[in-house]
């Protein structure tokens, strides 16, 4: 019974991991680019949600939407102001640019919102569901379910719509896509917007039950790396399954070996994976 509880908690958390990691996977797949500021996007989503609650008295649906829109715009702006140029530069510049961005965003939040912890006010989403001895909190349940649905939606958007095929066309072959009349710049900006929005929504969902401060982003970015590596770089469905797996592994290893070793297990797995199967557990060569 306890084991089931641990598994349930791990899967719910994993669903949220899957959502923000799929955003990172999208960027990676399209541009061969890793974004070290992805955790800060999650953090920014939390603060946008917070502002929506304070200013607009928004409910859970409202502030999640606000986080999505706010972060989409931020992602697009960052693409045009910084990333577009950096993509043409050496790899070192790519790594540096998002490090700088991460510091900048983190401390901009620090400047605006102070370093104090913030919790979202009690929303309509409270209480616990008792599934025959397995207790699930409603905010976490909602967060997990919404995250899973949105990750699926992102996958469907990429695989089933015309917009998606245009995005993938740019990822496959930039030049060819241009010849087909697709403007790669716009598509890449869109990808950045979607990526940031996925992180933002995940942030708003985590904020439902988690207190946050400007420093919170750092712990998410490495999780996203691990998930993306496991799922196969650039694969959104891979990230979805890998997110669930990582959530589960974290939860189980915290239970079996003690919480301190949960990160050791996850990072160890990451290193082993990169060495043994750099194409990802679920990826293909």
């Amino acid at each position, binding site marked *: 019974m306890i084991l089931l509880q641990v598994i349930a908690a791990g899967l719910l958390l994993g669903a949220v991991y899957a959502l923000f990691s799929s955003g990172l996977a999208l960027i990676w797949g399209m541009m*061969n*680019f*890793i974004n070290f500021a992805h955790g800060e996007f999650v953090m920014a989503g939390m603060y946008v949600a917070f502002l929506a609650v304070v200013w607009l008295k928004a409910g859970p649906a409202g502030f999640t939407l606000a986080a999505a829109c706010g972060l989409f715009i931020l992602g697009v702006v960052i693409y045009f102001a*910084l990333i577009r*140029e*950096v993509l043409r*530069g*050496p*790899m*070192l*510049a*790519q*790594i*540096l*640019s998002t*490090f*700088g*961005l*991460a*510091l*900048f*965003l*983190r*401390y*901009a939040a*620090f*400047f605006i919102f102070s*370093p104090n912890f913030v919790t979202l006010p009690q929303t309509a989403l409270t209480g616990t569901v008792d599934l025959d001895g397995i207790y699930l909190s409603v905010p976490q349940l909602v967060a997990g379910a919404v995250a899973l649905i949105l990750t699926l939606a992102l996958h469907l958007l990429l695989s089933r719509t015309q917009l998606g095929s245009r995005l993938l066309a740019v990822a496959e072959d930039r030049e060819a896509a241009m010849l087909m009349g697709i403007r790669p710049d716009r598509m890449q900006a869109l990808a950045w917007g979607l990526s940031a929005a996925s992180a933002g929504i995940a942030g708003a969902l985590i904020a439902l039950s988690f207190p946050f401060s*400007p420093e919170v982003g750092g712990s998410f970015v*490495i999780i996203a*790396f*691990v998930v993306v*590596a496991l799922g196969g*770089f650039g694969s959104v469905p891979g990230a979805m399954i890998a997110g669930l797996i990582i959530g589960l592994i974290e939860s189980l290893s915290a239970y079996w070996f003690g919480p*301190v*070793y949960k*990160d*050791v297990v996850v*990072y*160890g797995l*990451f*290193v082993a994976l*990169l*060495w043994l199967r*750099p194409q990802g557990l679920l990826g293909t060569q």
Partner: protein
Amino acid sequence: MRWRPFALAAALLVYPLLFRGAFYQDMGALVLIQATSASAWNIVGGYAGQVSVGHAVFFGAGAYLPVLFYELWQLPLFVGVPAGIAVSLAFAFIIGLPTFRLRGHYFSMATIAVAELVRLIVSNSGFLGGAIGLMGPARPRGWWDLVFRSAVPYYYIFLAVLGLVLLATWQMERSRFGYYLRAIRADERAAKSLGVPVSRYKLYAFMLSAAFTAAAGSLYIIKTGFIDPESGFGILVSVQMIIIAALGGAGTLLGPLLGAILLVPLQTATNTWFGGGATGLTYIFYGGIIMLIARFEPGGLIELWRLRIAPLLLRRRGDAHAP
């Protein structure tokens, strides 16, 4: 053109004599540590183009081993320095062998993961001081503990080590080793097809770089006398090396030194100006600078000088000569 490195060397030699304030001398010593670690990183990250984001592993090993020897057997700190370097070499070998099959970002991510893993393991190992860290001799037992009130002795020891690292880099730059590394950076596949033993030379560069980074870590512990997992193995330690090298110019001999000379005092100054208010302005500023370099001048300041400022000056001089 050839006089410039000598002028720089001379300026570094006389700096503590010109700036007598203890704080400035101390900052000078910190600049040299950072320059040493960034120059060491530069060998593999700059010349060979393999962006390691896990060099903190070597820095931390270089810092922990001396203080561990002190903790266990009360040995003076400098006795443990060779052990720190040896452990780093071993780490570099173990990490390097499988990791160098990975290219580009994959390599960067693998190195981050290894460094984080090591940091977590150290934080949870009692005999390494756990999360609290280890302390060197609190009060000097004799000169051999190298505890000085003034930063000047540290400064000259550090300068000697930096000199050694730069000399080695300079030698490497002009040797076949250096050409190989640059070939690898330019195009790994092409280098391989031309018969460059890519994996072997990447490993050599990684090990050389690791040894020097460990030396910088040893300098840190000798001066600071205290180490904890975050300041030895933290991700910011690795990032700082990259930023300094990139600011000055990665893959150039003096770029990392220039980067350290600029960035360390700048960090201290911004901390002094903005630090008191708990506003985070220091890091907003710092993050902004990093983005600006990446966006506008990824070659660093040396490139900026060569490509933009020097031609401008030359043209002006040319104008003056024109009738």
